[in-house]
């Protein structure tokens, strides 16, 4: 008692010397951090506390400053504070609820800040006390759930979500956040889904809800049964899934829009500086400026939805009108207000909302298209860590999509044609934006375009091997589907072939540098097998008989590359070493390509000789090809149309752990409870209460 008095006295003195007026709430915090139960003096202490405006900084710093021994001393009071916070959540008085939510947030953060090294159990003990923890957390989660689902104020809901985000991200590694065990037991999954299914709440809280869900799904993903994974995987309520899709769609669209805006700014700069600057100098410059912060959290959410939930695939193809900036070159970009996309997404309800915005410039879009555009931007520059991660995640998502039967069905649906304006990296040897007039094609063409674009633009010293592998695998999966379902896609396959051949060329010319870091034979094998797919099964999916001839033409024309590749792999496979095995696989896979080259090359030469032509035209070569098929025998290779299905574990586990960690850090940094100023809340609640 005397100690308390002394302390109080001290504080008073110090405060009177420095600041004559100290906030009441601070004084009350101090009381909590004293040893005594603050309610012994003032029975209405807790009631009063929650009427005070929370001083987050003070509370947090106070918690941080508590050292080891003191913890023991004040644990009861902190437990009590926690308990009363939870109780206050049930109060009718909304101000109390708000303050309790913020206090809780400060508690979680402060305690973790302090005890970075401490085990999760210590933290739980300190906050709630072991024996009460289960009960307290149950009450807390139930209160949050009812707040989120109730008809209460939107700002309250927002605060609830912020608190949850705060709780989920207090540790760097989400799986070490032991408190989340209680969030697993007392699921708020339903509350999240409800937010997503309702149009208005989705607009306001959708983003937080989706990020929260994505993070929760990643809690101890690989170690235990995570009920959020289970539940997410079986959601089949379309409005909800759609809502999730809308949130992701909106976030990605926003990113695309920002990027576009920046790019245009630069474009303006380009024209102004054109007179003084050389084009390529500018390009390097522009790259820097164009980087907009990627949004990995939302991408992770998209991944989890696509990967875990079968039904979400339909959402990808769910079209809704979007203001497309690319397609409207005539009208100078979005003069149309973008508001309908924002707060209230063009509702999914044709019936409930018969008046969709009627703008002739509205281009129908869907999540997949937006995602492809986003991916095309993200993939442009994979130099920094975040973008590399985003690009990788984009490719993983595409892998999942390419493996899904239903997704393939609508990707290849002949009746669903879209113009997809992918962003293309400005490069020295090609002009940007030549093809503004992209034809309306099935969506799979856009995916293939994106892959081709990636292949062409990333042959660099710092070779993104892993991305290339994924890229080729995606193409392979799509072609497998086409072969199986006999879909003859009218796609200019030639672009793909030449991109692939160029890739092989690049691998060859950088053999030594690349071999130091990567198994290039694996990639080469995948590429050659793609050619084998075309050669052996071309009859099942090529659009015209001419295209088969063109394939041969391309192979023969670029025979040098294949010859060199063969020499290289033969050399490596005859040596002993770690690459012997993979190189010999490539040797075997080249058998048909070599057969074609060896068969047609002499024929073409003799044709040239007979007709006294030095340089054969394409048509003439094709003619030779056409007339000489019958004497060519190919070997049937096994398993060309087999592929390994994507599985997150164990291959990708490390990637996702790191990704989630970086997302956690990012979210923690950005979750600010202060975004909502007390004034707003007061204004809102003073009238209510």
């Amino acid at each position, binding site marked *: 008692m005397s100690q308390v008095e002394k302390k109080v006295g001290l504080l008073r003195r110090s405060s009177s010397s420095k600041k004559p007026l100290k906030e009441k709430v601070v004084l009350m915090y101090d009381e909590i951090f004293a040893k005594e139960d603050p309610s012994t003096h003032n029975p209405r202490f807790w009631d009063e506390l929650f009427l005070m405006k929370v001083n987050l900084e003070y509370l947090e710093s106070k918690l941080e400053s508590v050292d080891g021994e003191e913890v023991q001393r004040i644990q009861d009071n902190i437990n009590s504070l926690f308990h009363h916070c939870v109780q206050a959540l049930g109060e009718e008085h909304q101000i109390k609820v708000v303050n309790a939510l913020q206090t809780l947030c400060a508690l979680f953060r402060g305690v973790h800040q302090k005890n970075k090294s401490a085990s999760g159990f210590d933290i739980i003990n300190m906050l709630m006390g072991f024996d009460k923890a289960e009960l307290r957390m149950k009450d807390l989660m139930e209160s949050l759930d009812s707040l989120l689902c109730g008809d209460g104020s939107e700002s309250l809901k927002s605060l609830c979500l912020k608190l949850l985000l705060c709780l989920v991200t207090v540790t760097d590694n989400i799986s070490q956040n032991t408190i989340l065990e209680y969030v697993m037991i007392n699921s708020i999954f339903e509350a999240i889904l409800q937010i997503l299914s309702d149009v208005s709440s989705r607009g306001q809280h959708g983003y937080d809800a989706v990020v929260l869900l994505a993070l929760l799904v990643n809690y101890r993903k690989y170690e235990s049964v995570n009920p959020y994974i289970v539940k997410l*995987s079986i959601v089949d309520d379309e409005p909800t899934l759609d809502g999730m899709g809308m949130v992701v769609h909106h976030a990605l669209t926003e990113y695309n829009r920002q990027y576009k805006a920046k790019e245009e700014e630069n474009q303006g700069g380009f024209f102004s500086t054109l007179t003084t600057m050389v084009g390529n100098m500018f390009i390097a410059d522009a790259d820097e400026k164009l980087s907009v912060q990627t949004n990995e959290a939302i991408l992770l959410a998209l991944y989890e939805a696509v990967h875990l939930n079968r039904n979400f695939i339909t959402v990808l193809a769910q079209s809704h009108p979007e203001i497309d900036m690319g397609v409207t070159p005539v009208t100078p970009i979005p003069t149309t207000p973008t508001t309908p996309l924002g707060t209230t997404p063009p509702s999914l309800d044709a019936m409930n909302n018969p008046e969709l915005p009627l703008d002739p410039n509205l281009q129908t879009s869907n999540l997949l298209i937006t995602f492809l555009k986003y991916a095309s931007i993200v993939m442009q520059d994979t130099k920094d860590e975040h973008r590399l991660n985003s690009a990788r995640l984009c490719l993983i998502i595409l892998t999942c999509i390419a493996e899904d039967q239903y997704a393939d069905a609508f990707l290849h649906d002949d009746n669903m044609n879209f113009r997809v304006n992918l962003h293309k990296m400005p490069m020295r040897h090609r002009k940007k934006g030549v093809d503004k007039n992209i034809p309306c094609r099935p969506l799979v063409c856009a995916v293939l375009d994106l892959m081709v674009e990636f292949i062409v633009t990333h042959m660099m010293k710092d070779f993104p091997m892993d991305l290339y592998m994924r890229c080729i695998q995606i193409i392979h999966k799509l072609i497998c589907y086409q072969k199986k379902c006999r879909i003859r896609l009218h796609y200019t396959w030639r672009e793909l072939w030449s991109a692939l051949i160029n890739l092989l060329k690049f691998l060859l010319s950088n053999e030594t540098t690349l071999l130091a870091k990567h198994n290039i034979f694996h990639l080469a094998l995948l590429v050659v097998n793609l050619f084998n797919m075309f050669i052996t099964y071309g009859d099942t999916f090529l659009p015209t008989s001419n295209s088969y001839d063109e394939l041969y033409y391309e192979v023969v024309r670029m025979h040098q590359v294949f010859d060199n590749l063969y020499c290289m792999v033969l050399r490596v496979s005859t040596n002993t070493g770690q690459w012997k095995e993979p190189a010999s696989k490539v040797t075997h896979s080249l058998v048909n390509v070599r057969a074609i080259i060896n068969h047609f090359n002499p024929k073409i030469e003799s044709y040239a000789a007979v007709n006294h032509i030095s340089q054969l035209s394409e048509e003439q070569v094709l003619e030779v090809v056409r007339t000489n098929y019958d004497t060519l025998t190919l070997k049937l290779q096994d398993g060309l149309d087999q592929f390994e299905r994507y599985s997150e574990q164990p291959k990708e586990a490390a990637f996702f752990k790191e990704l989630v960690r970086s997302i956690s850090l990012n979210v923690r940094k950005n979750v600010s409870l202060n975004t909502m100023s007390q004034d707003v809340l007061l204004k809102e609640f003073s009238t209510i209460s």
Partner: protein
Amino acid sequence: MGDAELELSPSHPEEPEPLQHSPPSPTPSPSPSISITSSPSLSLPSTPSSGPHHPSQRRSPSPSEGPGASSPALDVISEGTGELTLVIDPEMAKRACQEVLLKVKQQQAVEEGSEENDNSTTTTTTEQGLPNGDLGGHGASIGGVGVKGGVVKSPGIREEDDPSSAKNARRRQRHNPSKQSWLLRLFESKLFDVSMAISYLHNSKEPGVQAYIGNRLFSFRHDDVDFYLPQLLNMYVHMDEDVGDAIKPYVVHRCRQSISFSLQCAWLLGAYSSDMHISTQRHSRGTKLRKLILSDELKPAGARARRDPPTLSLFCPSASATNPLHGGVAAGGLIGEHSLSPSKRTHQRSKSDATVSVSLSSNLKRTASNPKVESNQEEPVRLTPQREFIKSLMGIGKRLATLPTKEQKTQRLISELSLLNHKLPARVWLPTAPFDHHVVRVPHSQAVVLNSKDKAPYLIYVEVLECENFETSNVPARIPETRIRSTRSVENLPDCGMTAEQRAGSFSVVPNYDNDDEAWSVDDMGELQVELPDVHTNSCDNISQFSVDSITSLESKEPVFIAAGDIRRRLSEQLAHTPTTFKRDPEDPSAVALKEPWQEKVRRIREGSPYGHLPCWRLLSVIVKCGDDLRQELLAYQVLQQLQCVWEMERVPLWIKPYKILVLSSDSGMIEPVVNAVSIHQVKKHSQLSLLDYFLQEHGSPTTEAFLSAQRNFVQSCAGYSLICYLLQVKDRHNGNILLDAEGHIIHIDFGFILSSSPKNLGFETSAFKLTSEFVDVMGGQDRDMFNYYKMLMLQGLIAARKHMDKVIQIVEIMQQGSHLPCFHGSGTIRGLKERFHMSLTEEQLQVLVEQMVEGSMRSITTKLYDGFQYFTNGIM
């Protein structure tokens, strides 16, 4: 039951008392026609469930009032229209009724079970009220009969003893029964059919006759009357009160029975009222009836009856017939399992998902894993789901019209439809379909925008599940689009899998849904690879079969060799084998969709549909037109239908294809598309061939059976449509408006310019019908057999049509009433039409006429001119 009544009937007039002892009908009355078996049953108080009356009697302030107490002078209350009931001679009515009664029983009249009388004590009583159930005035008249005792009358020909009604008195004086006896004989004759009934209803000035026919309508088959529904309703809207009064009981009665009839009436009433001046329209009878129907107060009487206190007297007239409160109670407790009220079984989906009114927001809807809270108190909606469905289809059309390009329209259409899918399955249906069904899915990516300059008609395909009765059968459960549960999903937690179970539980429609689900769960690409190659492959030895083999033969290590030439050959063979399709053209998206053979399309869509495995799965298609007046189309449809019947009856092998029209309002509607048909314009544009060459390409050389039968079809349809075009003066006959089906028939579409109207008054198309030299070429050229056959068919057809001219004229004539349609422009429309039947000519003269018309049409340069005109203005070849 019929037997029982047969016994009873003779006794009706003399002694009403025995009726009290008449056996309670054990089963639901099989027929509404029985409802005509009226009788002044006095036994009412003992029949708690005598449903149909209740609309008028339920609210009776004095429920204990016995039959005897009911006064003939009871107020005449009608549904706001204030019409009085009609009076005709009781004697005659008596006789008439007897006969009708007898005949009806002989027919052992029919079909759709009337819903109400399963436990009524005296069927006859029950029935009588039925048609008049909510006509307060009629209710009063029943009372009158009751007092008189012994007078049996047809439900509508009823008597009004009310001396205070001066109007009635006047009418009675005017009325001369003896004059009508011959008429009555006709009416009683077997020859008297709906067509005649309609005709007399239209022409007779006698209220008695009209009232009689109004009652007589009950005895006809529903289908037969339905054909004349536009005529009936147009008369109701535009003719005098007497006709309206005669028709109304029937309409109301049918509305009670059927949701689709209700909606049909409401739509037509709206459409036919629209020509009135806005001020009169608002108070017109048609508008009022429409409002009544749409207010959804015309619920099946049976459902209401059950809630009535048993003490209510039938004879107590009540002002509450139209009391909106009644509607409010309707949802209350429904007792009795026989109730066919759809309200009882209204489905969650149909209620909450397809309607705006019952918005989801009102319920606390948590998630899929949380069952929706469905309030039982909610007023079940009878008409709303369907109305909302139609409304959203129209909304799509309106929005599409604002988009500038076909491509944008198509994309928008597809996206809007995919959203529509979320609301399905629901208790909605396509009114153009010939069978009962529920719409379960719209394969949105198959929908196409049709060619039209400023409007945006579009064609959608609709997957439906056939059912016994769409009003009462359960709405099918929703099957998720992806159909198969993810193999990736973890589903071992017992408390999480509730969605599927919950659904299956509450919907319980597809009995072996779970099995199906499993059967379908072969999805992985890996697994699919081992599946049999699809249809196209079975013809030739395929590489992919090799590959399957080669997996197994891996051990043998024997390399398999293939010839590059084979691969190449297969590729070109397979490309050649694919059926001729039109190339995709963003400016004409419908061409490809329409060219695809219907069966092929059905198969394809069925494969891709999560519902496709259900045996009752069907595919329908419909053209949604928004901003177009389809009333003329409907008229043309009726005429075509009538002529088709006539030709069939007269055994003339003319071929025409009337396609169903649904008029939704004066500027919107739906059309049943002709399947397997593309327009001649599309044929010529995409194939770049003459018509004859196209026939050769599609059907084979001129001597093959396929070609010959296609040619015969062409000739028969040409002859049919030539006559149609002549009789109806169908104009605007460019190649975009003439379809060619897969069997070689031509089908004329778009009857926007018929009778007195022609496009833009350019004076083109003066010939009787369109007969281009290309057509003649397909027939084999002039003076060849097929060409002569064509002329002969036309002659036969004209003779047959002439014989039944009245039936055709009548359809048109009635619709002219009050109509501002362009086809009735001018005064000579009907006269002109009559003249074109050439009643006065001999058959020889007719033959000459046909010759002349054919000659004239062939020589006519105006046809050519018109085609040229169309080419230059609309790009139609």
